[in-house]
């Protein structure tokens, strides 16, 4: 994963490598392997906090390694020298108060010692005060939505969807370098700024996670949680949803691009321009073929994961749309289903995610695609009118 190499950090790299070697040494199986694909410790940290977590983990690994070796050195001695086959006679002792008190107190002291760095790191981790910018991430089945709440980009809002082609997942095409860890539109943040993340979800619990920042927080529907990071190095950092959220849990990565202040300013300007350009005229009257063409795009991005590109669905959890009663029934009920979803199922309410035009387009597409040749046209104004009810 985002293993942005920085050759300057030789000292810390050496320390990290030594922790990994200790882990490997426990089994003596993988010692010496240092290939990228054989990573045996945490990812290269790119925030001060992540580095503290990294060092804390290294410390703990040493502590437990030493304890393990110490205890099992005693066991090994017994196994070798206190064998019946060597004629060793069993001693007869079964209590020793001094020893028993000692091995209660010594571990207690070790635990108190490691509790100090563990506590200070944690306190720092939870300090989300005074951010430079705030971004709200919303988990959907199965994509992330980002909304810039404060800062220069305030108001910018978009979906971030897995961009790995289906062919690669189904082994019909060779897999790319960032297989499953790439999205169409990453989250973009400026380097060196404190970014506060607000997290929520629209359907089930998801977890937003970027290991290089030591950030992981649940996105709970109906609640807001927060966490923060301050990335110190430009680059692309990748993580994944970390709470089982249904069928495509493995297919909703988190990608964060950390850029310079200038690049960030340029990106913000682009986004604002694009937002102005994209906003549709809600009163526009569409022709059937252009609406269906747009609807197909909306369908592919939002619906095809469950209802499948050919509309056959994955019954019974995800019903077919091809020949569906709702799709072939009255328009109003169909639009209503898309806008409000179906509670208690994986059918999300898309009303807040899609514009009137997109909803009109996708409904028109579904009513005209596959064998559903209804020849019907839905105008954005109709969606708008129905939403009001």
């Amino acid at each position, binding site marked *: 994963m985002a293993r942005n190499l920085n050759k300057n950090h030789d000292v810390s790299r050496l320390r990290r490598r030594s922790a990994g070697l200790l882990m490997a040494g426990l089994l003596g199986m993988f010692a010496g392997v240092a290939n990228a*694909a054989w990573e045996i410790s945490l990812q290269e940290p790119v925030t001060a906090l992540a580095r503290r977590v990294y060092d*804390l983990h290294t410390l703990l690994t040493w502590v437990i390694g030493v304890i393990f070796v110490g205890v099992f050195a005693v066991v090994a001695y017994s196994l070798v020298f206190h*064998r019946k086959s060597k004629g*060793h006679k*069993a001693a007869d002792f079964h209590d020793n108060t001094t*020893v028993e008190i000692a091995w209660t107190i010594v571990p207690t002291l070790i635990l108190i010692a490691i509790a100090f760095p563990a506590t200070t790191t944690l306190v720092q981790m939870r300090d989300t005060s005074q951010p430079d910018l705030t971004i709200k991430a919303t988990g959907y089945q199965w994509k992330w939505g980002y909304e810039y709440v404060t800062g220069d980009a305030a108001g910018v809002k978009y979906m971030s969807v897995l961009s790995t082609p289906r062919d690669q997942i189904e082994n019909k095409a060779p897999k790319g*370098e960032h297989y499953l860890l790439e999205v169409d539109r990453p989250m973009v943040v400026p380097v060196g700024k404190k970014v506060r993340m607000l997290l929520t979800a629209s*359907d089930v619990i998801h977890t937003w996670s970027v290991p290089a920042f030591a950030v992981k927080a649940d996105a*709970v529907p109906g609640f807001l949680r927060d966490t923060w990071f301050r990335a110190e190095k430009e680059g692309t950092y990748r993580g994944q949803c970390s709470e089982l959220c249904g069928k495509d849990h493995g297919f909703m990565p988190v990608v964060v691009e950390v850029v310079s202040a200038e690049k960030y300013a340029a990106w913000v300007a682009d986004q604002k321009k694009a937002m102005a350009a994209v906003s549709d005229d809600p009163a526009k009257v569409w022709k059937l073929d252009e609406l269906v063409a747009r609807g197909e795009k909306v369908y592919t991005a939002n619906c095809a994961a469950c209802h499948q590109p050919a509309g056959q669905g994955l019954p019974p959890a995800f019903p077919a749309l091809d020949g569906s009663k709702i799709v072939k029934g009255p328009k109003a009920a169909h639009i209503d289903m898309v806008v409000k979803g179906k509670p208690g199922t994986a059918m999300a309410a898309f009303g807040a995610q899609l514009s009137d035009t997109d909803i009109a387009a996708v409904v028109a597409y579904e009513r005209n695609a596959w064998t559903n040749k209804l020849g019907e046209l839905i105008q954005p104004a109709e969606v708008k009118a129905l939403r009001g009810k």
Partner: protein
Amino acid sequence: MQASQHAGHAGHHEDDSHGHGPTGLMRWITTTNHKDIGTMYLWFSFAMFLVGGAMSLIIRAELLSPGLQYVSPEFYNQMLTLHALIMVFGAIMPAFVGFANWMIPMMIGAPDMAFARMNNWSFWLLPPAAILLTASLFVPGGAAGTGWTLYPPLSIQMGMGMDMAIFAVHILGMSSIMGSINIITTVLNMRTPGMTLMKMPLFCWTWLVTAFLLIASMPILAGAVTMLLTDRHFGTSFFNAAGGGDPVLFQHIFWFFGHPEVYIIALPAFGVVSHVIPAFSRKHLFGYTSMVYAIAAIGLISFFVWAHHMYVTGIPLTGQLYFMYATMLIAIPTGVKVFNWVTTMWRGSLSFETPMLFALGFLVLFTIGGLTGLVLAMTAVDIQLQDTYYVVAHFHYVMVAGALFSAYAGLYYWLPKWTGHMYHEGLGKLHFWLSMIFFNIAFFPQHFLGLAGMPRRIPDYAQQFADFNMISTWGSFGFGFSQLLVLVVVFKAMKGGVKAEARPWDGARGLEWTVPSPAPHHTFEDPPPFDPAEAHG
């Protein structure tokens, strides 16, 4: 008490078989004999172990290489859910209840369990629950695909397979509670005169504490899944924010059960190991009294650490700190136990028959699992490792290497008493070494996967995780197929072999070794004299 009623007639003594009871299948359906019921528990749990194991091999096969190969993501989720539910509730817990049934009356000199008919009922509840769980795969929508934790709102979205899992959990809970009442009553009331609590075999102590944990925690799980059920079908909103509920509430309730559950599985395993290690060290168990206090302490603290499973859910900083410190506290009594086992071997006269090998395997691997647990207890580090393969590795070291290896230690240790024949030592040792080697190949690399950031419960993964996943998959297949050796060993011992003496292990202590091998159908109809030389303390 119950046994004398069963035999029914004067003049029948320990050596009579079940005499006038029904035969054939009806014997097993109507039996109230603790040994018969123990045997059924053990066979049931082994059957479930094979079913759950087959599911894990489906999971590992899919993870052999990147890309989707054999199963769909939905089916993958169902497999990982059922694998966990079946292994926890169908395999490990019934295995130790089986040991309890067989051994506790014989260890304390009682004729049978206190409530022999309830004992029958608590076993026969299990097959319907197992059928509900496995049959849920074949209903519309398939089984629950939520993970064994059943978190809402995802569990609200599931089909009727979810309802079947909920009812299965209810039934399993009833069975566990009845079994626990039985064990507590038996242990507290039916010990032979002279066997005080502090002279009682440690396996009975671990089960006494475990039974209290079960009685306290199973109703809580039953409550949690019932709330899920009403949220799903009766319009309540316990876990739905839109109705004033909170999805995280479920996690609090679930883990208030779920963490004691970990010790429900681990404590009886500690008990078995505390018998096997002294026997093959030909020494008394070191620090019996501190062992008892450690068991009680672990049992108690296990109720106060639940939210260390929830560090990333947004609980407040003070909560994170409290649960971190409380979790670290468990390391102290656990450490005491490990040190006691190690000191028991120190200056002993060690020999390495299969039970001892499995006990040693338990000791090494459980210690690794316990130490990685200490790493996970540190909230700041856990933020990196929560829901990654590091956690998967950690709890398999505790559950498989801890509970399963100790169950095998117990199986090989008491098999001569059950069958009257010695098992094949060569096959037993082969089974141990294959298990030990393949287990580590399967699970050790998962620590590295988790550290590198691979989330758990995903059917497909990025390319940099490919190498360790491949190793892990081959290891798991080796481990899985090695377990079939147990069947061979047990069948061979049932059919014949070297005749076992009453006390086949020269270092073994306890009343169970004073009765002939195989143990007669009814033992200790009159309380045996308690010989302090047989005491563990």
